[in-house]
């Protein structure tokens, strides 16, 4: 431990500048965009509430940034040892939601802690990635993995995913499964096993549709498939989002000028649809820039992984990249109408302390791996 600390200083600040710049750029755009999203024309009361949202987002950015630096400062290999404990703690807090959780819009996702609430499922995403990375790290094998080999990581994934889905929080569950699956895909898996898993996932979704899913969750999917004939209003939201994005045209309406946002046609414009606000204000050019930034961070994460000196580092970097990737793709995909509306945040754009802190901590881990390759 002491040696690790000295080593860091000896090597000096080997900060990964491209990654840092990329993240700072996204953070900047995210804050600028949130300003636009929270300055819609409304009555004084609403405006005050929106201003509070903006300020608290800035606070969370600072908190998240400091945490990221802290996380990056300690050699990531230490986390490998603590991954199990952290994971267990995460699962417990996810379960605690059912006992202590405050119910917001039909699902219990938040835990009240003093004066603020936090969302254990957000932190669970990163803890799960850590845990899966740890498993991959220790699971040396030369021949392709079989179903039996995947039983343990499968279980590691399914427990928190199941808890999150039961809240119910479909989006987070989906992101957790997809990002940890991405990490597992790094290892060699037998083709037959892969086919079996995909088949099982398919069957599970069909069964879930028929027996487990709530009506509003189904509505989201059906309204995605047929937005014009939507009765719930969700399809209407999706359409308004697309109108906003299309309204941006090539160069955009200009900062804080997007009418769909300013006149209140975008639902949850600072949590679920910040991309629509951005696209309307900055147009295709702005969107291209933002997509390039996200794409860069994801690809850079894979680059960092490929340079990592151990399996844990490689898996961790891949996991963080996958988290960013799936979040971005799902959130933007739903805003532009190629994916159904599931509540997935846009990293560093969406409002939410837990989400911001989790993302920044994840990026701190990525930086950590990058600094120690």
């Amino acid at each position: 431990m002491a040696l690790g600390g000295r080593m860091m200083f000896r090597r000096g600040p080997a900060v990964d500048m491209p990654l840092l710049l990329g993240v700072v750029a996204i953070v900047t755009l995210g804050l600028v965009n949130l300003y636009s999203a929270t300055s819609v024309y409304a009555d004084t009361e609403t405006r005050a509430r929106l201003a509070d949202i903006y300020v608290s987002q800035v606070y969370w950015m600072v908190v998240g940034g400091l945490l990221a630096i802290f996380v990056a400062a300690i050699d990531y290999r230490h986390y490998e040892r603590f991954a199990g404990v952290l994971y267990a703690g995460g699962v417990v807090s996810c379960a605690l939601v059912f006992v202590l959780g405050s119910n917001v819009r039909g699902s219990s996702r938040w835990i009240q802690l003093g004066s603020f609430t936090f969302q254990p499922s957000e932190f669970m995403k990163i803890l799960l990635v850590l845990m899966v990375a740890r498993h991959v790290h220790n699971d040396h094998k030369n021949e392709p993995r079989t179903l039996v080999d995947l039983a343990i990581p499968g279980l590691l994934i399914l427990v928190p995913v199941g808890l999150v889905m039961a809240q119910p929080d479909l989006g987070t569950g989906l992101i957790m499964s997809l990002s940890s699956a991405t990490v597992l895909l790094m290892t060699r898996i037998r083709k037959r096993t892969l086919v079996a898993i995909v088949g099982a996932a398919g069957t599970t979704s069909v069964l879930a549709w028929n027996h487990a899913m709530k009506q509003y969750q189904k509505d989201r999917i059906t309204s995605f498939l047929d937005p014009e004939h939507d009765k719930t209003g969700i399809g209407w939201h999706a359409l308004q989002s697309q109108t906003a994005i299309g309204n941006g045209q090539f160069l955009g309406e200009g900062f804080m000028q997007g009418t769909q946002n300013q006149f209140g046609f975008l639902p949850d414009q600072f949590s679920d649809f910040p991309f629509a606000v951005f696209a309307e204000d900055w147009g295709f050019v702005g969107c291209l820039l933002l997509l390039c930034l996200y794409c860069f961070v994801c690809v850079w994460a894979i680059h960092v992984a490929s340079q990592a000196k151990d399996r844990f580092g490689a898996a961790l970097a891949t996991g963080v990249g996958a988290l960013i990737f799936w979040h971005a793709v799902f959130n933007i995909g739903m805003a532009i109408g190629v994916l159904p509306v599931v509540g997935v945040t846009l990293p560093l754009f969406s409002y939410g302390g837990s989400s911001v802190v989790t993302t920044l901590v994840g990026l701190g881990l990525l930086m950590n791996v990058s600094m120690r390759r």
Partner: protein
Amino acid sequence: MALLGQRSDVGEFRRRYRWLVLAAISAFLILVGRLAQLQIVQGDLHRAQARKNIVRERSLATTRGVIRDTEGRVLAANRPSYNVHMAPADVDLVETWPRVVKLLGLEEPEKSLLEAKIKEIQAMPAKGLSPREEKRRGQQVLLKVDVDRDIIAYLETHARELRGVEVSPQPVRYYPYGELGAHSIGYMREVGAEDLVRLEERGYRAGDRLGAVGVERRWESYLRGVRGFKKIVRGVSRRDDVQEVEARYLEEPRRVEPIPGRDISLTLDIDMITSIDKAFRGQLAGAVVVVDVRTGRILAASSKPSFDVNVASGGNGVQAVADTFRRLNADPLKPSLDKTISAAYPPGSTYKPFTALAALADRLIDPTTEVDCHGGYEYGKRFFRCTGVHRKVHLHEAIVQSCNTYFYELGARVSIDKLASVGLDYGFGVKTGIGINPEARGRMPTRSWYTRRYKEAFRGGFTLLSAIGQGATTVTVLQLALAYAALANGGTLYQPQVVRSIETSDGTVVQEFPPRVRRLIEPDQEHLNWVKSALEGVVTEKEGTAYKERIAGVDIAGKTGTAQVSHVTPRGVDPGKVWYFNRDHAWFSGYAPSRSPEIAIVVLVEHGGGGGKNAGPVAMRVVRDWQKMKEKRLSSKDEPAPSGSRPN
């Protein structure tokens, strides 16, 4: 380093990175592709939709044209009225609402219903509603119609404190003369849901009003005007950068002014209609038409009983309209029927001049033809009764005394088809084309009509009945008036006219309607003069059927008629009143002055009894008033014209 474990084998991952990078980049490319589609390919489409979301078109009401009579007096105009609405989402239930309730005098159960509505709408979330919910939330609710001016003034001065309460001007049609000429002028009604499907493409919307009857209906498209509009940005009134926002988001033209409807000048003379109303006071039901024999213009048309068109148009509220029509439809005297045009009656003896002309035209009689009246006429196995015993009569006496026997004799000589063809020449049996109300055709029966109708051999008796204006022969009051006008003017059948000219709201004449001749009948003038001198005799000769009712100084020629009615009582009539519905119709048809006719007048008193006694006096008094009026107008024309030639 050793402390942190062995450097593990990362070789297993090597081959995966390339695939991951490829997958990530392709995923983002798909997103970029879709973005290009939305923002570049369909950009204009979405821009248009976004603008549509925030821009509202407020329509600007137009004003309906004014209807005036021939002297420029206003028959139908618009009176401002104010309706009070509220936007439930903006109304403060604690501060504003109780004040509004008190001001408008809202009462239970209306008050509670409105309150429930406010609560329901205020409970809806402000955002994330479906379009339907959004629409429901934004809908204005009508609180009260035609609110007092004082209250409106108060509401407007306190508009800032009473947020969500809005006043909208809604012009109401106003008819200064109420019941007079109601059927011809017409009234307004609200566009119904079923009409809306058809009318929407012509620019009507729910809640609009349109002419339902009479001139209001026939000339609707002229009177109505064209709605204007102004574009506004949603919720702009709450912003402090109105100008800027409007300049940015509103496309030109931002405002299009409404075009007021055309004004219409009628040929009707409200003074004459007033005098008809007075002369008709003693009678329950009937109709009068006065036409200008030189033009075919209708100077007066009156149908009794009448009703107040102000109430029928909604001037006293929706409930009053419903009540009025329930009452009108239940009345056995049929007040809503325009008896001048929409109903056909047997003309009785007033038809005799046309029978005479038919017989004269076929050279079947001449003025010397003599018929001996013993109080009736034997034809086949039947005896056709006369009104009395007239002894030896010629054409002149037969008309003057209204001898049926003489005309039965004509009926025996002339063919039914000849009677019909002369009738058609004078405009009977076909619609006149006046167009303001549904028109009855009347009937000129022919041989083939009888064959079709009765499916048996034609009988000569039918002709005898038609000869005295009974049997299957029916006419409308208007047809008879136009036919008498043709007698009076020497054989010109005019197209009846109600509208003299169309003007813009500033008084410029857009279109004038000169008289139109429908047919030159070209009767033998000698025949016509025989008949006309007899019509003069009806009033002037001692034996004349209208002699007793003559008024000194009133120069009128005409024919009385007493038409038997088929004994069919309207449904729902009190048995105690059936006698009334079995009484004969009383007629008087004529023209004045007798030697140089200017107007033709037909009076029908439904179930009035004898024509001379009941219909005659009405005609006499109307003509007397007309003569006085003419003198007055002539003398006033000699004086310098009063300033402001256009009365309003």
